């Protein structure tokens, strides 16, 4: 998906760099972490990340579990895309770890529209669906001419 996006001009990050950024960490008990770019809480552009054709940049981390012959289970993820000089400056899609309270309140899946302390419930999406959104030609893109109310 990332390579396709590059080949269609939507992702500036080269294919060689895509291979360098995509990593896997396997742990005991069937858990694994798939990372794309560095862990970047401070939102420093100099840390490794993916970059879109319009300058927006993102990274992500996905936790999965495979128990025996069961299908791969999605445990948690966070995808954050950043828009320098824009407001909101970032959008982050979180899938919390499974847990009774989390799911009872319907907030396991949520997004942060430009603030770590502000979250909005969002539909449950697979990592592939979120990447499709991040790499989409129309959605999550600032238009060339921004309306005055968005400034």
């Amino acid at each position: 998906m990332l390579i396709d996006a590059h080949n269609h001009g939507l992702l500036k990050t080269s294919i060689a760099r895509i291979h360098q950024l995509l990593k896997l960490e396997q742990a005991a008990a069937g858990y694994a972490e798939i990372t794309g770019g560095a862990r970047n809480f401070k939102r420093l552009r100099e840390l490794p990340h993916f970059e879109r054709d319009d300058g927006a940049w993102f990274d992500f981390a996905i936790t999965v579990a495979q128990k025996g012959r069961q299908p791969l289970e999605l445990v948690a993820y966070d995808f954050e895309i950043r828009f320098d000089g824009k407001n909101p400056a970032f959008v982050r899609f979180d899938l919390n770890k499974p847990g009774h309270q989390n799911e009872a309140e319907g907030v396991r899946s949520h997004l942060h529209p430009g603030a770590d302390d502000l979250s909005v419930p969002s539909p449950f999406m697979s990592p592939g669906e979120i990447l499709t959104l991040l790499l989409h030609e129309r959605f999550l893109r600032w238009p060339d001419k921004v309306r005055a109310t968005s400034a």
Partner: protein
Amino acid sequence: MNVGLRSIGTAELALRASNRPGAWFVLIVADVLAVREAVRELVTELGYLSEQEVSSLETQSAPEALAAAFEQCPPGVVVTHGFESFSSQTWQDMDLLRSRYRRDASVIMVMTLASMDLLMQNAPNLASWIGNAWQWDEHAHELSNPEREQRLQALREQFGLSDQEVIAQAEQGQLPMDPEYAEWLVLLGKGALLDHE
């Protein structure tokens, strides 16, 4: 004798092979056991990338039979192995049959360095087809130690907790729900504590 080959991971080699028509690649692995592992990973990875069927062929020390198998393979990348049983003569025989191995899609030969040395010594026509040879880096896709430490340090600074505190909270079932904590435990090799949640 060699000055060392460049290393390559499975995903990158699969990508190169799926985009290069007619190319012959050699992947050097440490030993015979690694051959099977590398072949398995390559076939899986190529399956995701390639529009055509991927074939895996073991030589059985018989160049003539291998040539026949090549001719019967469906269009698509071929991953071939089993060269460790080849003698100098077998390589010479394979060299003479070179025309019969020609394909439109690429071919990956997985073998040990010793086998590659014999190929280079005895099969000059086949060797002229081999564009690239790499050493297999079976860990290319994994987080390096510095990368893992970068992530852990960022987590510690962000949440103001030590690794031991996070483990203790997880053991008590009191770890926050945020996705970053799941990653934290996996990076510490404590993924099993996620089962406590």
